[in-house]
């Protein structure tokens, strides 16, 4: 296999430029005008406070990111620590937050684009919205196709931006006038109470640092580079914001600062005559570049979050399919792109709504992330981050308090929006994700493991929200494979059954080693053996995945084929075992010696398919009632439900009327409502032989104990089954299995 280290090619500079490039677009180019009008010149303090809140969170992100350099960032940590309930909130929040942020960046792009080109408004959309929609569609398209991009490009973009901003800063400083800054009502014309609402508005300018954590798996030496990039980008950006916004407000009085293209306006004022035109064009191009790179990074990050959520089955993994030609997660990108377009079209009139919605959702995620950090530190003995936040537990608690505290200043509309979102995420968890995910959080496990010591209300709450899959193993269908030729049939049958009960597959390859070979010697030949085995199991995996059933695989080396299969079935507590038989061989091996003992003590329901293949389209189910016909009825019902099998039930009786009555009762008892009923008189074997013709599968329940033993013992007298062209599936349910176990569905 290829060198995985090769794939980690984001160095410190690249990571730093991802952070800076994502953040710088918003704070300088888009928001100063809007922010200044809500707070006056003290808005500079709003930026500094925003940077400080971001910094506290950046410390926590750095610790979590170095402990788990995984795709998905915040969602991943929260889901691990706090479980899928909070994981759903964090994942969906991060995702929606990024979509809102991308819509916001696109609007910013549109604002500057309209200063360059005249764009018409269309229908209810303003010219800015039309420009933003064009931009949004292009950003999504570029990520759909996955255009070539190298680290050089991002570094160049960020360097160019910093140079442009530096030039503006120098020229702006020359025309800076304290009188202009204080002209209209001093530093805080709207009162110091406007500072925090200002922070809530501009916090969107700091959303870039966490993107570095969403691509942590691609970083070189994440233990060092991640904290440096995350903390460094927040520090740099905070300084840049504070300096540049101060200068802007010293060039253009705050009430006059443009709401849509503030930096262009300030440039125009700051640069002298002839130079102004060139400078404005350069700044405008810089603004387009900055907002585009922010949107681009956000769209990329959202696909990482989808991937991490899909892996935990909080959203469908269908979303994460890779495009066959472009090798991009195109479905995720299109869905996120669709949300961006909708947000631009419906909410783009007011950039404040988009900015705050993005901030609110991210703040919720940050608060959860800090809680996750505490849970990791307190409950996970294996938690070992390369970077640790200073002043634990003060830092994460402060991060939580600040994140939640800032929510209080965003305004009622956005707060309602975030409440509605949390409710929607909870509904999503309980309706969709809870049945599918099986990953319980550290916190839930911690609480449930300490039931005696903790108040019962806490324990009850933890148990109530735990995912359905946690603790309870799903029903398992084991399939014993031996022959590549029959693999497909056996896995097809087993997967259909597993799908019906929402369970999973355990595919085993039992390699029977001759007695004279020691198991140690066999292990040495393992390479050769494992090649065959890997292939067989890889096929099984591919088949099961195609059918959408989770699968585990295992290879067993053994002297005693069948005994080992049964032993594995017993120790894995499987619910049914599917295997093939050929002549007198079961599961690829001849069961010798302990045969009777074995056969009379089945570990679970056993289904044996002969080698004529598995085609369940037309099933014949002969029944005379009795114990194992329950199992054959179950199998037929499952195949009806999952692969749309046509089932015909056959009963042979002396009296046709009594026979039909029996059959109607039997079918009703076994809930086989859509089956065709066949009643025959005369010889059982002939009747089966006649009816089997033209059908594809005969399912036979063992009438009395020992149908299986008669196959392997070679004394099967139902010779008709051997003469059929139709495949035969034998089903036997163990007699000894206590009713209680069966009810509990062990």
């Amino acid at each position: 296999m290829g060198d995985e280290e090769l794939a980690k090619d984001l160095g410190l500079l690249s990571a730093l430029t991802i952070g800076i490039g994502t953040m710088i677009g918003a704070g300088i180019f888009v928001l100063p005008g809007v922010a200044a009008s809500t707070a006056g010149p003290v808005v500079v303090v709003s930026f500094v406070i925003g940077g400080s809140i971001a910094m506290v969170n950046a410390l926590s992100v750095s610790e979590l990111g170095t402990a788990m350099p995984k795709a998905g960032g915040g969602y991943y940590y929260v889901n691990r620590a706090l479980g899928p309930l909070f994981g759903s909130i964090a994942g969906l929040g991060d995702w929606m937050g990024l979509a809102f942020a991308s819509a916001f960046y696109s609007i910013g792009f549109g604002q500057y684009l309209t200063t360059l080109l005249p764009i018409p408004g269309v229908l209810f959309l303003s010219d800015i919205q039309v420009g933003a929609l064009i931009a949004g569609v292009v950003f999504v398209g570029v990520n759909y196709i996955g255009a070539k991009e190298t680290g050089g490009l991002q570094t160049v973009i960020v360097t160019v931006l910093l140079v442009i901003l530096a030039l503006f800063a120098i020229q702006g400083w020359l025309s800076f006038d304290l009188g202009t800054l204080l002209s209209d009502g001093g530093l805080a014309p709207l009162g110091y109470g406007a500072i925090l609402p200002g922070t809530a508005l501009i916090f969107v300018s700091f959303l870039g640092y966490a993107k570095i954590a969403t691509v942590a798996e691609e970083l070189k030496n994440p233990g060092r580079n991640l904290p440096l990039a995350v903390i460094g980008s927040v520090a740099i950006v905070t300084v840049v914001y504070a300096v540049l916004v101060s200068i802007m407000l010293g060039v253009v009085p705050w009430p006059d600062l443009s709401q849509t293209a503030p930096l262009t306006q300030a440039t125009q004022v700051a640069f002298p005559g002839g130079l102004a035109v060139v400078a404005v064009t350069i700044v405008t191009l810089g603004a387009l570049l900055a907002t585009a790179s922010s949107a681009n990074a956000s769209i990329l990050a959202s696909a990482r979050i989808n991937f991490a959520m899909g892996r935990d089955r909080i959203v469908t993994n269908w979303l994460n399919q890779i495009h066959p030609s472009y090798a991009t997660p195109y479905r995720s990108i299109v869905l996120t792109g669709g949300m961006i377009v909708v947000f631009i079209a419906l909410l783009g009139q007011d950039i404040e709504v988009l900015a705050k919605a993005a901030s609110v959702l991210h703040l919720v995620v940050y608060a959860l992330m800090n809680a996750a950090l505490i849970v990791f530190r307190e409950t996970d003995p294996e938690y070992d981050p390369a970077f640790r936040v200073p002043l634990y537990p003060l830092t994460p608690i402060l991060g939580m308090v600040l994140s939640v505290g800032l929510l209080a200043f965003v305004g009622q509309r956005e707060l309602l929006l975030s409440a509605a979102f949390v409710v929607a995420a909870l509904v999503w968890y309980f309706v969709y994700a809870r049945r599918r995910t099986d990953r319980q959080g550290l916190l839930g496990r911690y609480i449930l493991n300490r039931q005696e010591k903790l108040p019962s209300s806490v324990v009850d709450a933890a148990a109530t929200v735990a995912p359905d899959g946690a603790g309870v193993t799903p029903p398992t269908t084991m399939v014993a494979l031996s022959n590549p030729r029959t693999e497909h049939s056996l896995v097809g049958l087993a997967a259909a059954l597993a799908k019906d009960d929402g369970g999973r597959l355990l595919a085993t390859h039992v390699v029977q080693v001759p007695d004279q070979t020691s198991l140690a010697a066999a292990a040495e030949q393992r390479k050769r053996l494992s090649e065959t085995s890997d292939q067989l199991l890889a096929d099984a995996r591919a088949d099961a995945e195609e059918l959408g059933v989770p699968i585990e695989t295992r290879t067993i080396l053994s002297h005693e084929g069948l005994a080992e299969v049964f032993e594995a079935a017993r120790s894995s507590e499987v619910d049914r075992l599917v295997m093939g038989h050929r002549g007198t061989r079961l599961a690829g091996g001849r069961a010798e010696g302990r045969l009777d003992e074995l056969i009379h003590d089945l570990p679970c329901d056993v289904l044996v398919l002969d080698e004529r293949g598995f085609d369940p389209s037309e099933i014949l189910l002969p029944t005379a009632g009795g114990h194992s016909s329950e199992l054959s009825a179950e199998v037929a019902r499952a195949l009806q439900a999952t692969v749309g099998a046509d089932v015909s039930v056959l009963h042979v009786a002396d009296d046709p009327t009594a026979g039909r009555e029996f059959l109607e009762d039997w079918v009703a008892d076994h809930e086989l409502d859509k089956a065709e009923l066949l009643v025959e008189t005369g010889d059982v074997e002939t009747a089966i032989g006649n009816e089997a013709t033209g059908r594809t599968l005969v399912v036979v329940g063992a009438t009395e104990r020992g149908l299986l033993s008669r196959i392997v013992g070679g004394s099967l007298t139902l010779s008709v089954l051997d003469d059929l062209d139709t495949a035969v599936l034998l089903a036997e349910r163990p007699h000894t299995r206590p009713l209680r176990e069966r009810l509990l569905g062990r």
Partner: protein
Amino acid sequence: MVVLRHVAVPIANDDDVAETATALDPYLDEIHRVTGIHVIETRPGAVNKAPLEKRRADAERFLAAFESRLAGRVGADTRIVFGADIAEMIAETADEVGATAIAFRSRGSGRLARLLSGNTTARLVTDPDLPVLSLGEGQRRLGESAPRRKRPDVEGT
């Protein structure tokens, strides 16, 4: 034919497995060894276009499928490599495993995609270090009696 002794076969995705294996089928009697190669395209220094873990898991799956399709007929092996330039990585890996030729199914791509991402086929066949065999659709052998091509159809793409 000595040129087919050890053939490096790039596999791009799930669909490519069956197509390539079918196309390769007529030549399997002459081939001793096949190495299936999947290149995961990376963007050095920039965020990759898809999560790498996902790409790797997918690649493992379809390379295993490819390997098992050939198993028992020729010696088969697989490689996953990472690199920015797909054509270059295929050539490099083929060289590394000691392949005597590269055989592949050309996959059409649109003009826009070609412009943006370069066309792997074109770059693979331009000035190659190893003989390059561009496979036709091949013949699906339904029964043993189906006719079999003896010679590589170099022109068919």
